[in-house]
């Protein structure tokens, strides 16, 4: 599987970092098992793998945040113990994190100063930031407070922060997950310029097309082990996906399109929500209807109002106007989550731990979480513990939730199993309207398949499903219609089969006009 490097660019290149036989355990869990990896100067090299494959653990060791249990790292040919992130930076290794490591209360310049060796005054640093920002066309104001910046701007601060350290290796942990396709393109241009200047880039992703577009080689990890290192130019996305996933990628067989216009079960009309904090996205005049028998996908890049919309649909946030949200024609705008559940809604929010489920409680208690208002398990204020336990066991059985013991704590379940549980918990109530956000986020392929099948089955039985997802593949696989959420506003819903990924990408990037043109061209 080991590909020969492309001769044209690799002949003169010396190996910058070479890791061999890296192992890392957390208790019983083996995160990295004999991982080997090598990157040359100026090379753009992808580290590819599913969530939980051990990518983050590996780069944390390269960046000095974790120490390997065994194995060796060579830096420029010398065996090196990378003791700490500071040591890594001294060596010339910089990292841009997936979740930004910026300090919200501090200014951009202060944030950058914290990552640089001491000695330079903040004023001098601010000047350097301005110069670099101009040179690369990045547009970063050193005096701004970070909590006033958009997500994209914050990422640029992160990148500038790394560049000022003059790194020879730049690690980027899923940098595009928060960017629009257009912003991604700009980022790639910048990265290619660094590469030409001799900076090696270790690019972590699970987006195959991106990897093929940007990188020369990819090292694939699966369950903590090397699958292989390949020349990306010689691989199709499907081949890369197979290496990443193991089995051939499953597909959900032909989704039935709901026949014609069925009745709208959930109607949302001009939902407006002001931004609660400086970090939140306001919702602007959101209107849509979810019909019986369909899955309505809501696509969009993270941070465009998904959380705010979900909270409004669940009833965690409630507006004051009447008739904004209706189920079966009944106005529920001012009703809380319990009443909404009684009327036949079911919800699965994006975050499993601490939102959809309480990690430190048993599955029985977690079953009670969304059924206490439904009358069966609570009588005169007292909880029927046997009933909740039976309910949890039933969900676990029906949705193939693997339990380490009887009625375990939610925290004892793996991510995928817990996700199956929280989805199953709602679907088993056969909700008339099922609203789910990121149903398969961070879930292995098998679990994702069964969750998607369950969602489609529910829709087929006559319920309406609203699925908020940032995963385009997911949207295209199981939604019948799709609308795009951008900056708190929702586009018209379109029949998924008639929409191209390009048009969706443009809508997700806020280019509604361009998307319109694309649609015309298509027609």
């Amino acid at each position: 599987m080991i590909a020969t490097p492309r001769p044209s660019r690799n002949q003169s290149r010396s190996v910058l970092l070479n890791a061999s036989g890296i192992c890392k355990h957390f208790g019983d869990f083996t995160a990295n098992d004999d991982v080997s990896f090598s990157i040359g100067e100026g090379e753009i090299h992808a580290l590819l793998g599913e969530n939980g494959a051990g990518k983050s653990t590996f780069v944390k060791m390269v960046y000095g945040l974790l120490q390997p249990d065994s194995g060796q790292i060579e830096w420029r040919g010398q065996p090196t113990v990378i003791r700490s992130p500071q040591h890594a930076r001294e060596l010339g290794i910089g990292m841009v994190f997936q979740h930004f490591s910026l300090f919200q209360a501090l200014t951009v310049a202060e944030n950058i100063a914290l990552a640089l060796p001491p000695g330079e005054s903040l004023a001098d640093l601010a000047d350097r930031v301005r110069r670099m920002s101009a040179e690369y066309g990045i547009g970063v104001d050193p005096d701004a407070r970070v909590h006033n910046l958009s997500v994209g701007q914050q990422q640029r601060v992160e990148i500038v922060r790394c560049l000022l350290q003059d790194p020879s290796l730049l690690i980027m942990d899923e940098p595009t997950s928060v960017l629009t396709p257009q912003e991604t393109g700009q980022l790639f241009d910048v990265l290619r310029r660094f590469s030409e200047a001799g900076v090696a880039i270790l690019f972590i992703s699970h987006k195959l097309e991106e990897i093929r577009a940007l990188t020369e080689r990819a090292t694939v990890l699966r369950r903590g082990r090397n699958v292989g290192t390949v020349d990306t130019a010689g691989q199709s996305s499907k081949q890369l996906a197979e290496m990443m996933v193991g089995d051939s990628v499953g597909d959900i067989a032909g989704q039935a399109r709901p026949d014609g216009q069925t009745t709208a079960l959930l109607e949302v009309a001009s939902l407006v929500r002001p931004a609660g904090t400086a970090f939140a996205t306001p919702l602007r005049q959101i209107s849509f209807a979810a019909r019986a028998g369909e899955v309505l996908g809501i696509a969009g890049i993270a941070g465009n109002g998904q959380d705010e919309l979900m909270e409004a649909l669940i009833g965690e946030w409630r507006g004051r106007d009447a008739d904004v949200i209706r189920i079966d024609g009944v106005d529920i705008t001012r009703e809380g989550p319990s009443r909404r559940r009684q009327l036949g809604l079911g919800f699965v929010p994006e975050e499993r731990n601490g939102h959809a489920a309480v990690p430190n409680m048993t599955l029985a208690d977690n079953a009670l979480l969304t059924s206490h208002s439904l009358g069966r398990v609570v009588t005169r204020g007292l909880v029927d513990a046997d009933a909740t336990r039976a309910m949890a066991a039933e969900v676990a059985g029906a949705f193939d939730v693997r339990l380490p013991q009887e009625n375990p704590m939610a925290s004892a379940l793996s991510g995928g199993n817990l996700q199956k549980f929280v989805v199953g918990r709602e679907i088993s109530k056969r909700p008339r309207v099922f609203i789910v956000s990121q149903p398969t986020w961070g879930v292995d392929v098998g679990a994702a398949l069964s969750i998607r099948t369950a969602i489609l089955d529910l829709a087929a039985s006559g319920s309406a499903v609203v699925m908020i997802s940032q995963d385009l593949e997911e949207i295209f696989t199981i939604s019948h219609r799709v609308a795009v959420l951008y900056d708190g506003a929702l586009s018209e819903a379109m029949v998924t089969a008639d929409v191209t990924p390009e048009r969706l990408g443009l809508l997700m990037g806020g280019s509604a006009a361009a998307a319109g043109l694309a649609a015309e061209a298509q027609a």
Partner: protein
Amino acid sequence: MISLTPRKEIPLTLTLMTPLVAIALTLVVGAAIFGILGYDPLAALYQFFIAPVSRPDQVADLFVKACPLIIIASGLVFAYRANVWNIGAEGQLILGAMAAGFVALTWPNLPGPVMMPAMIIAGMLGGLAWGMIPALLKTRFNTNEILVSLMLTYVAVLFIDWTVRGPWRDPMSFGFPLTPMYADAALISRVELPGIGRLGQLHWGVAGALIFALAAWFMLSRSILGFQVKVMGDAPRAGRFAGFSPAMVTIMVMGISGGAAGLAGMVEVSANIGQLQPDISFGYGFTAIIVAFLARLNPLAVIIAGLVVALAELGGDSAQIALAMPKVVTGVFKGILLFMLLAGETFNRYHVTFSLPHRARMQGDSDA
């Protein structure tokens, strides 16, 4: 260096052992401190923990001492489980005692069957009202309930001080800051044990305290209300998702803990003092916080924890008399006990490993 790795499961034996080990270590450390300060450690421990309970009537008095602690701690458990940090139980106790005292002093001729329930309700309402201030400020303005409830304790102390020196003072008290004595109907009577008669100061309030703790346990473990409290404390966002209101839970647990403290104030005055005076509590509201933690926030365990801490309190008295130690020394025991318990909690939740710092680094601080 200490490094912590979360445990996947907490072994039951560990859960049960923690308080016992903590108590044992507290005794060892306490003895060591006494030794260092020149007291005979064994004599001190004897005076502290054996002498106060060497006769049956003394055991009864231990229950009397534990009575307010058990009531208050049973209420505090709700607040702490919900992650609401009411540390103003002392003030709520005072206001409860004052509200009950108001009933007793304003209508001294009420018959017993009316007086007692009226005082109990007034006491609970008084504490509840005082607890509502931090609760409402928190839910309305997001103020920190720790600081507000604490500040209100000082206000309450000054308020009762003014009341018993001013408007409520007994004209016959020769200038002492005391209200008139309560009528008999307003006093909680002593328990008459069959064949034995009275035992120490044992009064019916103790039975009430035990029932109160049991009721609290039942409510917390079996009712949907208790479930709400636990969910809100563990994962507030999941609580909102479940349809529970954070504001309602905050108000509820402040009400329960404030009401419990108020009840304790009423019981304490009616059973042991018989009138209002500037000092009606000896820091019960603060000591009960330790009791709640010692019980690991379980109302059933509160009964045992209350007795243990009450023993340390009585031990302080006994050591004061026998060894001429200052009474506050009991705080040394209480403090160490709480330290041990909190550290023990960590051993419960994590695998704790100690290692020598290999080249202790203090990055970022080196240039300070």
